[in-house]
């Protein structure tokens, strides 16, 4: 590895960030565009709302449609109407309009769904990104948060009151779709049974009849059950989340190690054998990333590196050091060719570092849950050298053995494995997608399902049900029938 020693901290940061990229994507729901031609029904909707209604015949429709997707790979699907809501009342009007006019609705918020599952060829897309309220009750450690609030902003706001919530690892992902799909969140192992959605104690939701309802364990409990994991298949628009918060860490203490690709099985063994013995507040993940500017003709061990990232949510430095001691003393870290050690981190630092790896580029991704990462990483490691995407980053995160509450979020295992693919040239898109599909078809038999928010819904829609247990999938269908008998909301992407 002749070049490794020359790696500057800047390169390390950048590549490290690439590794720990977009763990959690947000999917809002839908957005709707209507065209207020004088006398048209869309004009009637426009007259009732403070937001914006755009329809296909509008001159700027294509710009609006594309703007709904955050990243640069713009799915070629065209809803009849996009409604950018500026209030919950707008959302209610939009849903009523959809119901009255037989339009099927979806919702988007930040548009981070890599599959752009909110974008459909018919119906109404409701954009709720403007719903951005945050109200914190320090005494009860709770917060009421609008769907459009970004994970980074939420963490900063909560810090003012000494609180924290397991937000997405990528700071510009709003909480909406991220939470509804389950939420693989920062320190969720310690705080919320491995998935952030279990920190949601209530929701305010616009149901298919246009009514605003509250749902919790005691009020509309079946709706609450569905919202905690139903994600893009939820039959309603959640306009506010009631969150249980936690005492903010005094420091996010950690290390990042750069390891040679030859250490892949050693790192995986470490992940399997050692990481589960650590305190739940120590979050460990590793990712494999290509070293910039290395020819594809080189052997894999010269093209790739591994980034092992450790973050302990601790009261102070002493506690942080104690929590990560088993890692810093572990032989695997002696294989490192470079490292950042003893990092006294913060949410600001975490999110800043992560930004570098999540440029607004062309993306796709897929994911699985596994009990043991060994076989999955063997398969991925074998396939990786032939990956056609210029940048591909498999990632393994330990989220802990958990005893989870009953909710739609029903697929889970202690190891989360995702692969992200990034490209620049259009010609690379189709081969990258095909590679991912083939790879995850191989992984499916050893997986315990996938995470809906980072599942390749476009590439393997037939496996979308596998993001839920068979019982939860059936119950979601039954509740949809009950709450949305006429189908005001679209079903999951690719489902009849």
């Amino acid at each position, binding site marked *: 590895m002749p070049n490794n020693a020359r790696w500057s901290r*800047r390169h390390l*940061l*950048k590549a490290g960030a690439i590794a720990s990229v977009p763990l959690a994507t947000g999917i809002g729901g839908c957005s709707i565009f209507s065209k*207020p031609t*004088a006398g048209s029904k869309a004009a009637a909707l*426009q*007259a*009732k709302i*403070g937001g*914006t*209604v*755009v329809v296909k015949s*509008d*001159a*700027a429709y294509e*710009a*609006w449609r*594309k*703007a*709904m997707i*955050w990243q*640069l790979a713009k799915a070629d699907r065209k809803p009849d109407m996009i409604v*950018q809501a*500026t209030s919950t009342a707008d959302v209610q009007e939009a849903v009523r309009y959809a119901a009255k006019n037989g339009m099927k609705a979806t919702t988007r918020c*930040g*548009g981070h769904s890599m599959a752009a599952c909110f974008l459909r060829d018919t119906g109404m897309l409701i*954009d709720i*990104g*403007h719903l*951005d309220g*945050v109200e914190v009750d320090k005494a009860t450690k709770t917060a009421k948060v609008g769907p*459009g609030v*970004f994970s*980074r*902003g*939420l963490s*900063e*706001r909560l810090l003012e009151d000494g609180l924290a919530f397991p937000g997405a690892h990528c700071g*510009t992902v*709003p909480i909406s779709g991220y939470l509804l799909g389950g939420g693989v969140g920062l320190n969720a192992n310690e705080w919320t049974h491995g998935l952030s959605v279990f920190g949601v104690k209530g929701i305010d939701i616009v149901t298919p009849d246009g009514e605003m309802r509250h749902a919790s364990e005691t009020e509309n409990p079946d709706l609450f059950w569905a919202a905690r994991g139903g994600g893009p298949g939820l039959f309603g628009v959640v306009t506010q989340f009631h969150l249980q918060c936690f005492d903010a860490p005094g420091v996010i203490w950690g290390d990042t190690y750069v390891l040679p690709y030859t250490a892949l099985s050693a790192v995986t063994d470490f992940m399997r054998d050692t990481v589960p013995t650590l305190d739940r507040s120590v979050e460990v993940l590793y990712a494999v990333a290509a070293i910039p500017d290395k020819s594809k003709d080189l052997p894999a061990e010269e093209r790739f590196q591994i980034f092992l990232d450790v973050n302990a949510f601790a009261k102070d430095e002493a506690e942080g050091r104690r929590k990560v001691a088993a890692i810093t003393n572990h032989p695997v870290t002696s294989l490192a060719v470079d490292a950042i050690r003893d990092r006294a981190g913060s949410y*600001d*630092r975490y999110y*800043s570092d992560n*930004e*570098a790896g999540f*440029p*607004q*580029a062309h993306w796709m991704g897929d994911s699985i849950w596994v009990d043991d990462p060994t076989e999955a990483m063997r398969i991925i490691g074998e396939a990786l050298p032939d990956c056609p995407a210029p940048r591909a980053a498999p990632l393994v995160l330990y989220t802990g053995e958990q005893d989870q509450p009953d909710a739609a979020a029903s697929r889970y295992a202690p190891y989360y494995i995702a692969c992200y693919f990034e490209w620049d040239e259009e010609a690379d898109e189709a081969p990258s997608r095909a590679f991912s599909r083939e790879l995850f078809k191989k992984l499916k038999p050893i997986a315990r399902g996938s995470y809906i928010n980072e599942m390749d819904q476009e590439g393997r829609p037939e496996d979308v049900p596998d993001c839920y247990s068979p019982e939860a999938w059936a119950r979601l269908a039954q509740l949809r029938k009950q709450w949305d008998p006429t189908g005001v909301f679209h079903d999951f992407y690719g489902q009849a």
Partner: protein
Amino acid sequence: MKKLYGTALAACAAALVAGMSLNANAQAEATDDPEQVVRDLYTAFEEGDMAAIETLIAPDATWTYYGPPSALPFGGVRRGPEGVGDFFAKVAETLDNPVAGQTRFLVDGDTVIVPGFEESTVKKTGIRYRADNVHIFKVRDGKIVQFEEFIDSGKVLLAFQGDDSVAVGKSAAAAVATPARAEGKIDKSVGKALFTTCVGCHGDDGQGRAMMYAPNLTGLDSVYITRQLENFRQGRRGKIEDAHGFPMVGRATAIGDAENLAAVVRYIGALPDAPAAKVAQRTAPAGLAGQLATCATCHGQNGEGNAQMGGPAINTLDSDYIALQLANFRSGIRGYDENDGQGQLMAAAAAAIPSDDDVVRIAEHYGR
């Protein structure tokens, strides 16, 4: 945001003045809800729906625009639908491309309070002014019985008197109102579509979010916004060490071609201005007179900005943001590129600030 006073509106006003028969056959279902009545009125204005306007205004309603009628033709108190028609006729006679927007609807019993803004070009002087306003409506039995417009009519008066210190659109880009606005229609422009990605950090109305380390964008000269977006796109700003600037590189690049860039800048330029810090009322920090004089050269005496010098307004930025940027300029994180002339100038000026404490004091002097 909705636009008021469009061309349709002028037509409607003219019709009212001419005493055209206003039949009610196009009327939407009547409502007694005060907020809905007011919203219906704005909608009727947008659509030039004369029948609706007549039914929404009580025969004995008072319609007041606070300002001297002798100098502002639409100023003073008017009565009934005919008075309202006269009001808009005067608007149409004296103003070009009037645009208005409502930011909120606050309801207190039968009273509806609507903060917003108005932007118009005075025909006789050619000066385009932009003023924040508040409309207060009183509604009874589904009809508006009282309307009051509180506006910075001093600013409007100066525009009528030819004082271009109140002119907006010091740059060519800002001078062009979005076509949608000019037509008095809902803004569905490309610029607004592109701004969708901006709201999460910069706020729904571009007024900034401290919790995202993102500054207010409103009230800034369009040339300045364009230059900064180009800086991000060209690698002249937002290097990876600039933790809170780096994310803008991707966003600015993703805006797309020059046409898209202009569209989003136009949209931002038309957003209601954020309130400015009252710098004039503050005591200047001791011992920094020389520094403040340097600031004032490009940013104006009270941080209001100086478009000719390329210095943006800084009195609408949070103190924390100003301090962070000054620190970035001082440490080479911003203003590092030789093709960013203004940035390099700023880096040199920031380097001359005696201490980090003084950076904070200067930031607090100018910031919100």
